[in-house]
């Protein structure tokens, strides 16, 4: 049936591509095609020890599939890890397509075609059982994303995506080559690795390659450009879904192919492999720097892009620590991030659809005009800021617990501060876009945009109440790595350090809310106009009811003033060193500092090549 699926996908791509002039029809067809991965997911749920209800038994996708391709065999097979990431992608994908139907007014066929192709690529990646398959589908995905980036039409975005995509692919390819050179096989299951430096080099290269896709800090440069200059529904899918593929890759190779014991053989620090430790530190730095940069942004999409970088940093920390607790936390964070970031990007799309603006300082007061969009955003922001009334908190909590358990004394404060920093930019979105002075007289977003947003909010609420269900999902994945799932009941998670009981939180919250409500409902109230406001006594009619009262431009100016010099100085210093080094090679080397993103990526590539060469010689 996988063959059939691929055929349907390809057929769908051709049809929607041809239907370019009928965007609505193309959208509807794409939507139905996009549901297929979800059904496949359902039929494979036995991998996760979930039994399907009998009326769904007609879904009968085979769990593995092979195709002989000359030099090697393409092997596709469902694994628990693949299933988990497929869950994220396949539930996000139809919603994004549904959102796009009303979002695009013309010229959408290409979009749907490329989206379907992207999904096909990621489908393959998640099922791939050998490096060849993996790489082929990786390229399919990357190139179809490029098509979507090109649709955004921003040169800088295209160049930066292209160069960083190439860099990523090269790093991965190089790592694969080293692995093949070492083991002589493409198939993951047949690899027998030892603790040699070559393997370490290979895994470092592969992880760095995936980190580019996951927008980890030194290699994050492409993400803000692409996120802020592409079409909204695609960005929602890219940030929410596709960025997880990088983490899928890291997990697959770090824990699936190499394994925890082999990682430890390259040195450990307090029971954590040094490799993972480095990754965790980089992740913490990413979380912090991404947050700080997000606070400084004025463009809504750029803010969300940096916020993505920051939030994905948490996943890296979890993967780096590598205990069952940490991996559960990382996966939970991946799930949360998929949904809340998608909702936020879709909400940004809806706001743009109604107002035509992306700059936070130019928006304002939409909360009463678009209440459902606002509420969906609010829920996502609660999840983003880890407020304990959405599932966002559980993920962060698991990561903190994992860090404390392993005595990450210096990483944990940075994680926590990045968490507090998230309040800052979260409030910037809320205030700048939805609260404050009503500047636009617009209607609520159309229903076909609201429905996907609200469906995507649902998991955040479900996993708030039943975090234990999530831990159940992680159990087969951890089993594959020889670990056991953390102790839990549906409402409670236990760790060696503390317990997290959602029932207490929820019932406590509902109870106190009721208490507050009774207290509060005691008196009547009247609604007043926006301008009937404290103006230090000045009557607004004297100013013709024309007083600017929205403070969102440069909202965190003192913050920017404190942090901007450090970020600026840091970058300048780095380039000064590079220039000084360039001086050695002659006067022409001054051209190194060109300010073009593509060039920088080549420098990074060179750096890695030098590093690899050094490893090989050593």
């Amino acid at each position, binding site marked *: 049936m996988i063959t059939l699926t691929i055929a349907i996908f390809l057929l769908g791509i051709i049809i929607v591509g041809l239907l370019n002039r009928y965007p609505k029809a193309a959208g509807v067809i794409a939507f139905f095609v996009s549901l297929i991965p979800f059904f496949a997911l359902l039929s494979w749920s036995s991998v996760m020890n979930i039994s399907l209800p009998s009326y769904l038994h007609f879904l009968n996708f085979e769990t593995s599939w092979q195709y002989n391709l000359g030099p090697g065999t393409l092997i596709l097979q469902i694994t628990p890890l693949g299933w988990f990431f497929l869950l994220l992608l396949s539930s996000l994908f139809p919603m994004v397509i549904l959102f796009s139907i009303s979002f695009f007014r013309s010229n959408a066929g290409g979009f749907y075609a490329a989206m379907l192709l992207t999904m096909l690529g990621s489908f393959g990646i998640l099922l791939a059982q050998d490096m060849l398959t993996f790489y082929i589908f990786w390229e399919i995905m990357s190139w179809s994303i490029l098509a979507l980036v090109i649709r955004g039409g921003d040169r800088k975005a295209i160049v930066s995506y292209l160069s960083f995509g190439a860099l990523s692919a090269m790093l991965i390819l190089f790592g694969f080559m080293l692995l093949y050179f070492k083991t002589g096989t493409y198939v993951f299951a047949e690899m027998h690795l030892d603790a040699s430096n070559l393997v370490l080099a290979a895994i470092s290269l592969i992880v760095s390659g995936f980190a580019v896709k996951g927008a980890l800090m030194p290699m994050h440069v492409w993400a803000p450009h692409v996120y802020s200059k592409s079409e909204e529904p695609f960005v929602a899918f890219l940030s929410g879904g596709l960025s997880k593929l990088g983490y899928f890759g890291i997990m697959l190779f770090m824990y699936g192919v190499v394994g925890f014991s082999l990682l430890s053989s390259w040195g450990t620090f307090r029971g954590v492999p040094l490799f993972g430790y480095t990754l965790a530190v980089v992740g913490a730095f990413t979380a912090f720097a991404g947050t700080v940069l997000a606070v400084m942004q004025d463009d809504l999409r750029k803010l969300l892009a940096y916020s993505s970088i920051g939030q994905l940093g948490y996943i890296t920390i979890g993967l780096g620590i590598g205990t069952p607790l940490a991996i559960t936390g990382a996966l939970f964070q991946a799930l949360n991030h998929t949904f809340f970031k998608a909702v936020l990007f879709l909400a940004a799309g809806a706001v743009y659809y109604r107002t035509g603006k992306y700059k936070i300082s130019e928006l304002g007061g939409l909360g*009463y005009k678009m209440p459902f969009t606002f509420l969906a955003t609010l829920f996502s922001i609660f999840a983003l800021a880890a*407020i*304990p009334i959405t599932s966002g908190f559980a993920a*962060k*909590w698991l990561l903190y617990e994992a860090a404390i358990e392993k005595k990450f004394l210096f990483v944990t404060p940075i994680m926590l501060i990045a968490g507090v920093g998230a309040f*800052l930019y979260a409030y910037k979105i809320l205030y700048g876009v939805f609260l404050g002075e009503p500047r636009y007289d617009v209607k609520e977003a159309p229903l076909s945009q609201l429905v996907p947003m609200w469906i995507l909010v649902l998991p955040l609420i479900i996993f708030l109440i039943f975090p234990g269900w999530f831990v159940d999902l992680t159990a087969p994945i951890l089993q594959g790595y020889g670990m056991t799932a953390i102790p839990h009941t549906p409402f409670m998670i236990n760790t060696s350090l*503390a317990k997290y009981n959602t029932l207490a939180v929820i019932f406590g919250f509902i109870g106190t809310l009721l208490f*507050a409500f009774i207290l509060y409902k005691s008196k009547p109230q009247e609604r007043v106009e926006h301008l009937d406001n404290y103006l230090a006594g000045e009557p607004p009619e004297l100013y013709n009811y024309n007083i600017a*009262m929205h403070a969102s431009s440069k909202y965190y100016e003192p913050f920017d003033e404190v942090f901007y010099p450090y970020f600026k100085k840091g970058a300048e210093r780095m380039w000064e060193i590079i220039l000084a080094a360039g001086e050695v090679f002659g006067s022409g080397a001054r051209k190194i500092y060109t300010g073009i993103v593509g060039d920088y990526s080549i420098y990074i590539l060179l750096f890695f090549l030098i590093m690899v060469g050094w490893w090989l010689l050593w």
Partner: protein
Amino acid sequence: MVNYIDLTIQILVAMGVTALGFAIGMLFNGIARKITARIHNRVGPPIYQGYIDVLKLFTKKTNISHGWIFDFAALFSVAGIALTFLFLPVAGVTLLSGEGDIFLILYLLAIPALGFALGAGASGNPNAAVGIMRALMTMLAYELPLVMVIIAMMVYYDTTSLAVIVQKQANMQWAIFIPVFFIGALVADMALQGMLMEKPFDIPIAPHEIASGPMVEFGGKHLGALMLYKMMGIVVETTLFVDLFLGGGVVLSVSQFGWLAYLVNFIVWFLLILFVFFIALLINAVFPRFRIEQALKFYWKYDAIVGILILIWIFVGVTI
């Protein structure tokens, strides 16, 4: 089977404790104003002034609203702070979730703050928006040294649970008697000053600058709810400090002394939070307020450096 009688008793006790928390908060408001007045060479209001003020606000004849998001603020603030109080070990007793996890408490504390921020933003007043900006930045500023100290304690006591930390400090083995945590307590006390929004960190509400900031549009019952939030906030934040460093006020063990222990512990806890609050008030009375970036620099330079030293101390101590 759920034991309904137990559950009912638990709910009643929770309501009672919440009410008690609010009562103590309002009392603290009166005490604070009295002490400040004495420093000002004044007589000051009666000690029960807090109760009168809140009751008056709730008995106002008319109230205004800027829409449902604005109303949301009051609800969220009161509910959030009461919830936080229920999760805190008070005099060694925690009502909800016996473990009292610190991360949970830190994040629960954000619920009322965020609700308040939403309401202030919904009022549409720029003063309120600037006030919230300052409040969030102050929060960012004081959290860094605070979490450093707290994480040092977590690693030292090998738990993230406040209740366990309180338990481990029983028999007067208070954290503050350990030299490193004595320094930690000083750092945390400065952070507490910011948490309580007392000078020099009362930047968010600075009346001379932004006319009481976020509260600018709140009146009547909305303001009453916010005052409850602020007053209870004092109790919650001082209790957090007392739980961390002063053993939570637990001086007698419940297993030995029974109900007497509850009573004595409760009184000791009350005196301790009063003492902590008193220090905050004294600092409040004689200092001007920082500018917001100065506060950020103060916390992230001086306080955080001490925090890092404490972390290094614990780091070395744990490794060896």
